[in-house]
């Protein structure tokens, strides 16, 4: 009777926790899942309004959806714990896959392992020496050069390899992604972003952190000497320019201009022109025409009462609108005269009919705007790591696209005076079929058949 007794010797292979982890993080299936999950999460972030105010978030507590949204950070998807978790898993997955491939990469690089995708056996009717010469002449054209040759009695081994560096392309691309993610993490931990608004002629140091909204201070003061806004003839903005001085410990350490696309960097901190705001006016100019035909110009400064040349009116600037109405910019002025109640008047720049004040016909001639310049503040020590990753990524693409690792081996064995056996094998990382067909064609063309 022949009964297998292996039944009573079963051993249960224990799958340890580490094995499971290893299996999970070296699988491309996880990579596919993570890519799709990150894509869907990113879509959520563009659909659901992000950066909601405190008030909105307290309102959200009222409803079930709102509370869920807050738990899952749906109002700040890209900074949520689960989005970061997905990125960390992606990073681990990349490291796992890279680690798994390193041994075979080293073996391929050293030529100790060659995955042959085709093998060809041929017989030549010449002595081994002549056959070797014919084969080298045929293949050197395709493989750009002479082979490494190993000689043994009655046999030769010829070995061609092109663009071995191609093997590094895929690891380089994946390493690049890991480095970019690490750079982003560095920026998240050690960098900061903020915004500061400085009025023309003023100095600023305190700024608001983005996105937390917390106040913070720069290590230097920014003095905005001048803000200029240039326009094209068509009225579109052409350039914003902030002329600034940086003051540290009472000393001026830098002076220059900041424009859009032309930031200023001082001690690692960059200042970027982001926007501007009309906050006030330096002065308003009124054109006065007296009853006797005399013309005057009157300049009003904010917060200052001005007297009319004649008469007893005093005028004070109350408000200004830079031009949201079709009647152009307007100002509100307060008029005071002794023994009369003060009154307020609105003057539009584009009105054809002047406003009458006392004996004068008054027109709004123009105003000198006072701007506040909006600057963005950025400090990101991780950016250089990210750029390193980007350069590696592009290098990886160039290597994989424009180079090709190809390998041909020819084993020549003398089998008598006019009989030589040949074994041609090889592989190519790209255009496999074309490569095989080409090698087949040239080797069979080169040999002298029996």
């Amino acid at each position: 009777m022949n009964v297998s007794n292996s039944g009573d010797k079963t051993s249960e292979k224990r799958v340890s926790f580490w094995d499971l982890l290893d299996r999970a993080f070296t699988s491309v299936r996880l990579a596919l899942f993570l890519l799709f999950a990150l894509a869907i999460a990113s879509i959520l972030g563009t659909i659901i309004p992000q950066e909601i105010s405190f008030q909105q978030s307290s309102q959200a507590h009222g409803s079930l959806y709102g509370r869920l949204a807050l738990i899952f950070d749906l109002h700040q998807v890209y900074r949520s714990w689960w989005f970061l978790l997905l990125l960390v898993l992606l990073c681990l997955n990349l490291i796992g896959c890279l680690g798994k491939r390193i041994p075979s990469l080293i073996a391929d690089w050293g030529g100790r392992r060659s995955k042959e995708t085709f093998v060809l056996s041929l017989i030549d009717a010449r002595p081994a020496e002549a056959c070797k010469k014919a084969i080298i002449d045929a293949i050197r054209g395709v493989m750009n050069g002479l082979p490494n040759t190993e000689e043994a009695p009655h046999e030769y081994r010829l070995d061609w390899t092109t663009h071995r560096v191609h093997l590094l392309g895929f690891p380089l691309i994946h390493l690049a992604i890991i480095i970019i993610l690490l750079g982003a993490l560095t920026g998240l931990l050690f960098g900061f972003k903020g915004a500061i608004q400085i009025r023309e002629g003023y100095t600023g140091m305190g700024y608001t952190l983005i996105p937390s909204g917390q106040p913070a201070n720069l290590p230097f003061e920014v003095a905005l000497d001048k803000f200029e806004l240039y326009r094209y003839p068509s009225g579109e903005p052409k350039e914003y320019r902030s002329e600034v001085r940086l003051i540290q410990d009472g000393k001026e350490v830098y002076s220059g201009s900041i424009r859009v696309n032309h930031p200023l960097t001082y001690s690692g901190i960059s200042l970027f022109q982001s926007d501007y705001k009309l906050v006030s006016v330096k002065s308003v100019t009124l054109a006065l025409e007296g009853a006797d035909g005399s013309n005057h110009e009157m300049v009003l400064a904010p917060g200052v009462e001005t007297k009319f040349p004649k008469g007893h009116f005093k005028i004070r600037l109350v408000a200004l609108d830079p031009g949201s109405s079709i009647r152009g910019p307007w100002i509100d002025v307060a008029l005071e005269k002794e023994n009369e109640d003060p009154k307020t008047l609105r003057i539009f720049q584009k009105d054809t009919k002047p406003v009458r004040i006392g004996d004068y016909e008054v027109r709004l001639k123009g105003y000198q705007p006072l701007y506040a310049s909006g600057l963005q503040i950025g400090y990101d020590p991780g950016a250089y790591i990210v750029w390193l990753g980007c350069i590696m990524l592009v290098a990886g693409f160039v290597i994989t696209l424009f180079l090709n690792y190809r390998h041909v081996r020819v084993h020549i064995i003398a089998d008598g005076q006019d009989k030589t056996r040949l074994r041609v094998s090889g592989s190519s990382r790209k255009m496999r079929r074309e490569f095989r067909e080409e090698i087949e064609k040239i080797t069979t063309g080169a040999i002298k058949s029996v």
Partner: protein
Amino acid sequence: MTSTALNTFVTFAYLTSTVIYLIAFVVSSPKSRFIQRAFRLVVVICLLHGFSILYRWIESYQLGVGHAPLSNLYESLVFFGWTIATALIAVRVAFHNDFVVAAGLPTVFIVMASTFLVDSSIRPLIPALQSNWLVAHVVTCFLGYAGFTASFVAAVMFLLTLASPMVAQHLPPAKLLDEIVYRSVVIGFCLLSVGIITGAAWADHAWGSYWSWDPKETWSLITWMVYAAFLHARLARGWSGHRTAMISVMGFLCVLFTYFGVNYLPGLHSYF
């Protein structure tokens, strides 16, 4: 003649060449001289189209607002049309198949015809766009988009060959289509990556942060991830045929949303 008028001419020339191509397919055999001439006509129109883009560049200098013609929706559509036409010609040269060109030309016509709906005047460049990164960023992104468009055209034809054998016998072999779907994605993916990197470099230079999750940035990353999934599915898990074709179609929908849909969401790219 202005470049806008030239673009109108080019638009209808693409339509005409599509019709000529289809007639050539019906009345003559593949590889016939008629079909070769139809292809040459497309090459000539594409050259004219490229000339029109350069001409608009010169025109903008004559108006005193000189800048590369890549600064608004009209100009980007014209450039997108040109990159698709170029990608189709590249597919024809690489794979010796005319059908993909004929099938892709209507896409070029639709893109070019849609320029009639938007403002075509040459405007001066707003401060945010005054940067040398503009050309590098826009050109790489749109060449990437063109690669994805070529892949999409081949993927749709591939899915049609599966629909019925009747249709399949008039289309190029499924294996060839599958190859075009894959190779176009490889090129498009590399170019989109470079486009995202140049965009990040520009954003870092102009706004002080290389990534700010602006909707267009985010959607370009979504597109990138979908095509990354495509490449991993194909290279590491051995997917091919209808499954990769479906991912290619999905990726192309993401491209369209990145290009057009995002304009309806607020963000930094609002001028495109």
